[in-house]
């Protein structure tokens, strides 16, 4: 299924900002809010996972039902998951298309990666010095 990929703030994402190594931040940013009808079309129940392929890459997200999201669009809180699919082009404005890229959605059983995995996939080295 094709959908317009929209990103932005949610209060859960904002609450997690100061402790991004905590699981709450991963939970808050790795969700894909979808219209219930679109979720049904993908044959998914809320909480099952969806594979999102965008102009710059792909990512697995957990679906969340949201009636406020219009059909044919998905809303993903701003963060490392949303940015895994967004292209870096800015049309000479400095601002990437955070709210207007097209993605392909597909049901999947794959696991949602951790933020540390995402950062290692782009060449980083996870820091684990503060894990309890």
């Amino acid at each position, binding site marked *: 299924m094709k959908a317009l990929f929209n990103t932005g703030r949610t209060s859960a994402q*904002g609450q997690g900002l100061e402790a991004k190594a905590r699981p709450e931040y991963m939970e808050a940013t790795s969700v894909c809010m979808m219209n219930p009808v679109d979720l049904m079309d993908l044959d998914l129940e809320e909480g099952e996972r969806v594979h999102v392929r965008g102009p710059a890459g792909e990512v697995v997200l957990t679906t969340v039902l949201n009636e406020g999201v219009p059909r044919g669009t998905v809303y993903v809180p701003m963060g490392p998951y949303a940015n895994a699919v967004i292209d870096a082009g800015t049309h000479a404005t*400095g*601002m990437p298309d955070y709210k207007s890229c097209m993605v392909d959605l597909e049901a999947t059983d794959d696991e949602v990666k951790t933020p540390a995995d995402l950062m290692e996939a782009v060449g980083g080295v996870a820091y684990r010095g503060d894990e309890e």
Partner: protein
Amino acid sequence: MIHEDMICPFCGCLCDDLVIETEGTEVVRVDNACTLGSHKLMNAGTHRLKSPIMREGGAWRDARYEEAIEYAAGILLDADRPLLYGWSSTQGEAQGTGVSMAELLGGVIDSTTSVCHGPSILAIQEVGHPGCTLGQVKNRADLIVYWGCNPTEAHPRHMSRYTTYADGYFLENAFRDRKLILVDVRKTETASIADEFVQVKPGGDYAVLSALRAIVRGREDVVPPTVAGVTKEQLLRVAALCKEAKFGALFFGVGLTMSPGKYKNVRNAIELVDELSRHTKFTLTPLRGHYNVYGSNEVFTWMTGYPYAVDFSRQIAFYNPGETTAVDLMARKECDAALIVASDPGAHFPKKCLEHLASIPSVLIDPMHTMTTPLVRCQIPTAVTGMDAPGTAYRMDGVPIHVKKFMDLGYPTDTEIIGSIFEKVKEVRHP
């Protein structure tokens, strides 16, 4: 210990009525703050990095401050095109030192503005900014428009301190007398309390703004029956509400700046406000995210003439968003060293930029382990301004506010660390 009248260092509202209770070095209670501010203040003391960390052979190790400062100065001095990025969650004092250092290095300095309200500034540079302070809105505005934003989740106290739920000096019953119009592509919680919720098809903001301008100008005959999913009837109602208001205030978020059209959307919104001001008093204010992102624009502007994305490689200040902005510099693999201050590109930049950031020498100055931590070679923890450091911050309406300190955890401030790096840079490159 109870600290009254404290300033919240989270978003651009800079709420100044917080009551914070501390026991030793712990925050045990925060009153008056929203959920975002409370989370920051309650937790920010607990998730700090203990000391600087450095990467060595694919693993992290603890480091001393002197060593980390030496390393930061070294990579900036060795670079041909260093990028100094971030600057939105820090003190104005640190921002100023950053600009001086960028100038001496011949580098590029950019703030998170470029990925939030950068396009708003581009629009303001084209057609001006009909703005006012939030106090004016609170006391006078009888019509509030929120366009492409969701204050309930992103600026939770904006409505209770300045708009819908705030008492106003010139309004008898502010909650009943103040009308609320919300324009968005999705139906958010804010929609449930709006007098008019205008649901625009994604990418349709420019067309809807143009249609409203036409109606306000008396040319409703040129407006088709629906515009980007909005009926002409609703547009006529919205235009009438705006014209009938005694004082209208339009607030907008990144729903305008990030959507197709970007700065042209904001330009159209400003021109609608201009048009409305021929009938009544109307103002426009961008809802700024980081508590001191506005400050970065102020400090950069008074020091260089430009609000963000300032390039000193020509030995004069040069500004060309789209070329000298952080996302573009990283996507083109142009910068060869980076100093990231008080921001988290790891969480908020497209993947391609992060791949480049991970491949160059870089230092992060941030109190916490963030998404950017894995991508840099060295991180220096500092005090959180508004908790264990005082400093200057600018509210979203441009009012500078002295942010207070209410505890001490022994960390140096951003200004001290950047000042120390600058000293090392100056030892090699005399100003």
